């Protein structure tokens, strides 16, 4: 396990060796390595294959901008595709495999694409695969899809946990390079609440990669000291391994902190934390990214960015090659040569394009062997360090559609004037490309910001001394030639593609991106976009700023979907609301069903019952014959009080409400302002100025919202107040011929006789010897029925008390299914009928809508399309052959008509098997249904392969006169 390319020095910990595997081979690295540096230390230059041509690829960079060195990390459910080796912290036992090849990495079968390249130019797929037509779906596309994509998901659920967190600060500093550290120190010393975030596991940025000195000490040591000082400040929070991935409205920043990715296992701890950071001000010190130049075969393993070469040598103590050539268009070339020489690495050549020199080609199929100069001279080299200049990392400045502007002197885009509000930029990200300038910019900008926030920065220590090294650049973008020169390495976009795209009229930058896929790969073109723009500018004879600009969308680097979701998955996807009788129901054989946020009992299983129908039939039968009890607490309950409460109700309900006496309940029909039915329920008048309204379960929150709108926005001076009391009261329906007898045992001192407490009466009372309660005589089942409410804390005791009191009558608990069967038998509308598309008239409630008052929805309910002939009407339906089952969702057709939408006569909304009638029944909307009683039509249900003759009947199957509920 030798590391033939390991050098002396650097910031890795040689006392802590780590063992890892790449494509099954066991290799060694050190604590402080990235996977990329460890691979290079072991001489592994070939790391993956490119997207389209399957070209052999190595490591280009030492940071998040890496386009080539993507690996699959781990195996099994935790396997992680497309992971950048350059930012993957090495840990013991790490397993990585290369991606995007058929057969072994060295002998990829699909590298045949490289030979076919002339026929695979930009957008070739838009121009072919069209003949014969059927081949696209059957042959061409499946082939393309199988070849596409890079890494692979395991297909198993992500086993890790992700957390979400919220942080607040005065100043968020993004990036802990020299500018960021100096800024954080400045703001921290002034007393501001600072968050300093850096994506790296070691603070310092380029200070760790270069041989800079600050205040006479090594740059990396200065960074260490700065970190140590910041760590002593209570008002500063340092977040290493944390990427600020997006800048959103009003200073909200998204951050991803990697907590356990660098450890062999998560041990149950969150893998990552997605922070939402609320920052009064933000300071972007994200540094700059180096770019390459385009020349023939510039994509071979061994061709690296010069800054990355220095990072591997200086920070990681790894030689990227034994004989390194340098290609540069700026003063960084000299720095690279110096650093390599200091480590005793041979310099093959320094090619400075400012001297008119250039690299025109390279050789070496699976790794660089030589470069060819313009003069035709070939120079042996196993590494070529390319410096095409630096592009400030303006990404976050673009997240609110800010546009960077071109600066000729540094040949780069810098942040434009339209920054996200509250954001400033300092250091290399702002175009301050020398160390001294970056430190000063960080200091000055932070001073200005904290001053604005009201913090004093008196007596700051002297600005750290650092060199103001030369960074002169003469842009050099690309060497023209007949061979392919890569711009976007991952997506295999070459200068030829850009030229062709321009010829075909895709001359705007956005067209170029879309047509060639330039900048659309996992690296989002961090090293490619400016180069691509320059090549396009050249092709079109314009300057770069005339050609366009490069903008970026969030996220800055890719963020796992699991992190965005956090803990909201599986059963925790959404909160679960449990009605007050839940524990009792669970003890008593309930089967539960999700209804919106609630978990409700759908039926209760008893010994000997073979299926759910047995349970439901029994519950219905027992309720109709004796008495049943159902938890109806999920219905929305709104407490309405005030001198104008009656007036308010009269305006929000379509039917009259001014004259409801105290002690009485009324059915209320609520419309939306557009005149369609919104909701229904009952409202009880408990006292002169005190009402309680119920809504449907589904609309509880929505109705409350609209009532508050009416109260606050439409009639702000009505004396009325609303409180949602849904969760405050446990409410049980007690229904059936023995309901009165049962309740007489539960309710204290109240005459429940029909005269004293008739249908639609209500009162406050006590139950079981003094527990406060409310009693309503209302019926959804059509039986003699009551609803009794107690404060929620007594809900559990109440169901137990009621069941005990009901024992002598054989009382049954019933669930939502029996509830539904009984309401269908009774012809009451529920969710399937109150679906927001229906009118009161269609529900058979048209006459309830009072025309003499200005209630919500009254006016627009009278539009011609809602009052004309041929309207739908809610009807009852039953199969002509009583043994057949109906299905909701079947359409209604006239016998003999063609089955198309033009002949559609309506549809079935709800069905039930009625134990009361012994056959299937249904409700449904039928065109002109009210005039078609007794007619036979078809229930047409092709998705379930059924076509059933049904008879149109009254929707009120059960006790249409209502004698039972009034009895």
């Amino acid at each position: 396990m030798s590391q033939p390319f390991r050098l002396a020095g650097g910031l890795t910990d040689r006392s802590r060796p780590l063992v890892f595997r790449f494509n099954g081979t066991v290799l060694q690295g050190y604590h402080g390595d990235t996977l990329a540096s460890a691979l290079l230390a072991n001489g592994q230059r070939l790391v993956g294959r490119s997207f389209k041509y399957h070209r052999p690829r190595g490591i280009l960079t030492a940071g998040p901008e890496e386009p080539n060195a993507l690996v699959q990390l781990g195996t099994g459910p935790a396997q992680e595709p497309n992971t950048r080796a350059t930012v993957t912290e090495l840990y013991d036992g790490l397993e990585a495999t290369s991606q995007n090849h058929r057969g072994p990495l060295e002998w990829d079968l699909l590298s045949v694409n490289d030979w076919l390249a002339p026929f695979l130019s930009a957008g070739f797929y838009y121009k072919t695969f069209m003949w014969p037509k059927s081949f696209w779906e059957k042959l061409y596309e499946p082939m393309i899809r199988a070849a596409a994509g890079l890494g692979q998901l395991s297909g198993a659920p992500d086993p890790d946990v992700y957390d979400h967190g919220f942080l607040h600060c005065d100043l968020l500093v993004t990036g802990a390079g020299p500018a960021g550290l100096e800024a954080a120190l400045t703001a921290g010393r002034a007393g501001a609440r600072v968050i300093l975030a850096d994506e790296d596991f070691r603070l310092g940025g380029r200070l760790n990669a270069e041989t800079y000195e600050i205040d006479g000490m090594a740059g990396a040591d200065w960074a260490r000291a700065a970190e140590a000082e910041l760590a002593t400040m209570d008002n500063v929070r340092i977040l290493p391994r944390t990427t600020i991935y997006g800048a959103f409205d009003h200073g909200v920043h998204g951050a991803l902190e990697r907590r356990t990715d660098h450890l062999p296992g998560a041990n149950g701890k969150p893998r990552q934390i997605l922070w939402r950071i609320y920052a009064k001000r933000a300071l972007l010190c994200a540094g700059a990214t180096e770019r390459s130049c385009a020349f023939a075969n510039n994509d071979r393993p061994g061709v690296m960015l010069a800054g990355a070469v220095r990072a591997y040598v200086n920070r990681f103590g790894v030689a990227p090659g034994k004989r390194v050539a340098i290609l540069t268009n700026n003063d960084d070339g000299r720095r690279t040569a110096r650093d390599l020489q200091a480590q005793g690495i041979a310099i093959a050549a320094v090619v400075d394009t400012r001297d008119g020199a250039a690299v025109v080609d390279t050789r070496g199929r699976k790794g660089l062997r030589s470069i060819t100069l313009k003069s035709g001279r070939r120079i042996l080299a196993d590494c070529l360090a390319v410096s095409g200049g630096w592009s400030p990392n303006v990404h976050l400045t673009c997240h609110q559609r800010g546009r960077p502007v071109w600066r000729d002197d540094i040949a780069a885009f810098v942040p434009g004037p339209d920054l996200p509000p509250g954001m400033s930029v300092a250091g290399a990200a702002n175009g301050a490309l020398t160390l001294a300038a970056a430190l000063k910019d960080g200091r000055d900008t932070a001073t200005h910001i904290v001053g604005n926030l009201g913090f004093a920065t008196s007596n700051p220590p002297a600005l750290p001394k650092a060199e103001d090294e030369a960074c002169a650049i003469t842009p050099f973008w690309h060497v023209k030639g007949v061979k392919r020169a890569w711009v976007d390495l991952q997506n295999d976009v070459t200068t030829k593609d850009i030229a062709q795209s321009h010829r075909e009229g895709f001359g705007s930058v956005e067209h170029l991106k879309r047509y060639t896929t330039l900048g659309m790969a996992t690296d989002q073109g961090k090293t490619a976009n400016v180069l691509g723009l320059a090549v396009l500018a050249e092709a079109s004879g314009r300057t770069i700023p005339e050609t366009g600009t490069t903008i970026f969308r969030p996220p800055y680097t890719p963020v796992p979907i699991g992190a965005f979701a956090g803990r909201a998955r599986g059963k925790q996807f959404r909160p679960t609301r449990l009605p007050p009788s839940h524990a009792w129901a669970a003890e008593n054989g309930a089967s539960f069903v999700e209804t919106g946020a609630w978990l409700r009992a759908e039926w209760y299983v008893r010994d000997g019952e073979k299926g759910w129908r047995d349970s439901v039939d029994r519950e219905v039968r027992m309720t109709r014959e004796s008495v049943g009890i159902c938890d109806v607490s999920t219905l929305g309950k709104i407490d309405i009080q005030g001198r104008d409460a009656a007036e308010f109700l009269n305006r929000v309900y379509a039917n009259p409400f001014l004259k409801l006496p105290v002690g009485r309940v009324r059915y209320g029909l609520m419309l939306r302002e557009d005149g369609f039915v919104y909701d229904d329920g009952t409202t009880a008048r408990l006292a002169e100025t005190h009402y309680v309204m119920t809504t449907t379960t589904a609309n509880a929150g929505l109705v409350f919202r609209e009532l508050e709108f009416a109260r606050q926005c439409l009639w702000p001076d009505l004396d009325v107040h609303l409180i949602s009391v849904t969760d405050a009261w446990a409410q049980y329906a007690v229904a059936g011929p023995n309901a009165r007898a049962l309740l007489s045992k539960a309710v204290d001192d109240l005459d429940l006789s029909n005269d004293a407490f008739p249908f639609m009466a209500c009162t406050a009372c006590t139950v079981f010897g003094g527990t406060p309660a409310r009693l309503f005589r209302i019926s959804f089942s059509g039986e003699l029925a009551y609803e009794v409410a107690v404060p929620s804390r007594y809900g559990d005791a109440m169901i137990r008390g009621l069941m005990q009191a009901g024992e002598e009558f054989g009382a049954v608990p019933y669930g939502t299914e029996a509830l539904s069967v009984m309401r269908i038998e009774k012809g009451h509308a529920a969710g399937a009928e109150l679906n927001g598309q229906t009118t009161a008239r269609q529900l058979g409630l048209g006459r309830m809508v009072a025309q003499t008052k200005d209630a919500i929805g009254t006016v627009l309910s009278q539009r011609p399309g809602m009052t004309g002939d041929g309207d739908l009407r809610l009807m009852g339906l039953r199969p002509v052959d009583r043994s057949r089952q109906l299905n909701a969702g079947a359409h209604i057709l006239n016998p003999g008509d063609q089955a198309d939408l033009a002949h559609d006569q309506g549809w079935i909304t709800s069905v039930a098997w009625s134990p009361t009638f012994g056959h299937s029944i249904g409700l449904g909307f039928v065109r002109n249904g009210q005039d078609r009683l007794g007619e036979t039509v078809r229930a047409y249900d092709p998705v379930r392969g059924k076509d059933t003759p049904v008879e149109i009947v009254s929707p009120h199957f059960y006790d249409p006169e209502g004698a039972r509920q009034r009895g």
Partner: protein
Amino acid sequence: MHYSALKIFLEGLTGNRGWGRVWREPEPKPAYDIVIVGGGGHGLSTAFYLSNEFGLTNVAVLEKGWLGSGNIGRNTTIIRSNYLLEGNQPFYELSMKLWEGLEQSFNYNAMVSQRGILNLYHSDGQRDAFARRGNAMRMTGAGAELLDRAQLEKMVPFLDYENARFPIKGALYQPRGGTVRHDAVAWGYARGADRKGVDILQNCEVTGFDIADGTCTGVQTSRGAIRAKKIVVCAAGSSSRVMSLAGMRLPIESHVLQAFVSEGLKPVIPGVITFGAGHFYISQSDKGGLVFGGDIDGYNTYAQRGNLPVVEDVCEGGMAVMPMIGRARLLRMWGGVMDMSMDGSPFIDRTHIGGLYFNGGWCYGGFKATPASGYCTAHLLAKDEPHPVAAAYRLDRFRRGVPIDEKGAGAQPNLH
């Protein structure tokens, strides 16, 4: 230039130097028979069908930016004809039929890929609502199957059947649903219209309408005045802005819909899948990226970007329904500005101003409608009567009380 495999082969041998412009870049003429405002999907398809089906070629398409810079290049590329209401379903089925013959009709491979769409259901009520919809689809010949859980599990085994907060009970399946390469649709229509002589004018922003005596006779643009016998505005996302230049207020609000794509992955999702208990839908592109989205942000906006709560909501939906995507990384998020109408349905209609027509209000469903929208708009312009399948898309439907409200959400745009 006719595109074919042979052409690619010959060009490949000669260095790909012979490819010409996909569409011309003409100077505006002073007058046209028809001016189409908006060089997005609907404007370009209108131009294509006018010139290729209705024989009208003295036509210009005016685009304020670059061609296809609106929602045609920002959507999640899904096509389907799985609507419920009579006003909608036949229209979307026409669109599906046009998609199916599109590539041959404009000689451009837009990669129409009918890998199927699955709408998951999570309760009996939802199943029945889907049955009603599926039956309506069958009645227009769109094809639909109602799958139970066992059938679904066979097709997509990776969903969270066991541990879901809202149990996955089955799905409505339209085998003909799928995806299309969105940018290529714009380019293909542009090329097809251009080849018939339609002028496509980029960087040509309309700054006013010439209206006299209730009739519109032309437009003022950043490239000069252009006269026209008929003018149609196809600028969804900016409809209110453009139509306000003609003094009109519309039953439309502008909202942002975000969309997301992951890093490229080997094929893992077979077709389109939509979650029925949250806001999430997903497909996988030919390049391997998971393309997904969810609900609109909910506030009026013209900024083509959204905010974090919806990003998280969408990813929560994704993890709830298919927790295998946790380790796929979200690569890019973006937003498109939607014309959200008062009932969630679009408009293809004349206005009260003579010679001025309007196409808009597509909400987040405009992409799949692109071919039929263009076809029906061309029909309306060419024959001055609505195409039967688009006859319900009138501007006065709220006055008449016949909204086309698929969701039953009422006259509040951000609820559709």
